[in-house]
């Protein structure tokens, strides 16, 4: 469970998160949308401590990120993250991309980590790519490897930052299918995306951000059918055509 309590963040003078409050319960899927620059990535990165914030607090399973004793290394092992640009390690083979964290961080044996990695590659549908380098895969395949890499740490929570927005349209579905499966398996997920089909299918809550604030929140139905704020209406008009 993630509790975001009155979080504000500035980059210099620029306030990029403005008193954000949100709770993501265990097993829930929360979709975050909003225009570019509204603070979605920053919010997501503050959940696992990649971005520090000045005010408020975030608690992950009760552990406060503001507590100086909090061990971010341990915390991040339980929170997988998937990035817009995949961020696979280009100098490592697909299989090594997936096994390196379990081997070096969790001290798993090579064979155990390798076996697990192959299972995960089966799960995301590309076991035949294990021995290739990421540069030789399509975008959709790379993003599925990135998901497998995050899952290899057996996280309790998965964070997705626009996982399909760098993909060619024909590859979006293969990635979304994996994410839908994951959501249905009970994973706790925070997903920044504009894929409203995905949101309708699996989101427990949708939040809409603008200028660092959450300006609209609701279940998929209330959000799509009668958003209250002008900004959300305008945004939906743009992305739903």
């Amino acid at each position, binding site marked *: 469970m993630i509790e975001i309590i009155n979080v504000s963040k500035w980059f210099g003078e620029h306030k990029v998160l403005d008193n954000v409050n949100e709770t993501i319960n265990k097993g829930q899927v929360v979709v975050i949308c909003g225009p570019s620059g509204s603070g979605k990535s920053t919010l997501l990165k503050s959940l696992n401590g990649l971005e520090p914030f000045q005010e408020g607090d975030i608690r992950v399973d009760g552990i406060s990120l503001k507590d100086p004793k909090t061990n971010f290394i341990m915390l991040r092992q339980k929170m997988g993250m998937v990035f817009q640009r995949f961020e696979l390690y280009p*100098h490592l083979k697909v299989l090594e991309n997936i096994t390196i964290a379990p081997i070096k*961080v*969790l001290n798993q044996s090579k064979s155990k980590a390798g076996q697990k990695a192959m299972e995960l590659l089966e799960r995301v549908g590309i076991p035949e790519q294990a021995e290739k380098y990421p540069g030789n895969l399509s975008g959709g395949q790379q993003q599925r490897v990135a998901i497998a890499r995050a899952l*290899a740490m057996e996280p309790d929570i998965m964070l997705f930052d626009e996982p399909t927005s760098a993909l060619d349209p024909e590859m979006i579905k293969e990635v979304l299918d994996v994410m839908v499966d994951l959501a249905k398996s009970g994973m706790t997920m925070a997903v920044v995306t504009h894929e409203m089909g995905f949101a309708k299918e699996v989101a427990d809550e949708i939040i809409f951000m603008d200028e660092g604030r959450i300006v609209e929140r609701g279940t998929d139905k209330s959000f799509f059918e009668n958003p209250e704020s002008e900004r959300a209406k305008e945004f939906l008009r743009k992305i739903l055509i």
Partner: protein
Amino acid sequence: MNFEWQVISNNFFFLMGGLVTTLELALIAIAGGLVLGTLVGMGRLSKLKSIYYPSTLFVNLMRTQPLILVIFWFYFLMPLILGRPIGGFTSAVIAFTVFEASYFAEIIRAGIQSISKGQIDAAYSTGFTYWQAMRYFIIPQALKNMMPSLITQAVVVFQDTSLAYVIGLREFLRSANVVDAREMRSVELYLFVGLVYFIVCFSMSRVCKKLELKKENA
């Protein structure tokens, strides 16, 4: 003008002894300069002021001094600091390591900056520490990008070591110098020295070209 090339063969082992000293000095300075330069290069990118400022000061200080002065500094300073004399070779090794580290540091800083910040975010997000992320992901990728610049700098270090003759270190150039004082065959000796420098440096720059081509094709 008549050449007497026997001066080379007659003193071959003496001259090669000097070349060995030059190579030793260059190799230790390159290895030491790389290690120290990597740390300083990382320090130049640190968010911690207590690491950033000393690293930056070090780089700027070294890069504004003539190498020959740095060699003198260490030759005269180290005995004062340590309270006992140290040999010319040791002081030269320290001077070259420290001096070249400042040049390697800037190459390595640029190399690290050439790797996207997303890579370190990805590493952090699976629980790697800063040092692990550097070791497994950032430095290996950065090294690949900066290999040509590193080799170019290594060639410069190799040439620079000839300056150690100013503190009387009997490296390659100095050995030729010594033979010349005895046999008065400057032309042959310095042609030979030049030829050896050419061969070593030229083959290093060939390797560099190869790597650059490979990078372009990759």
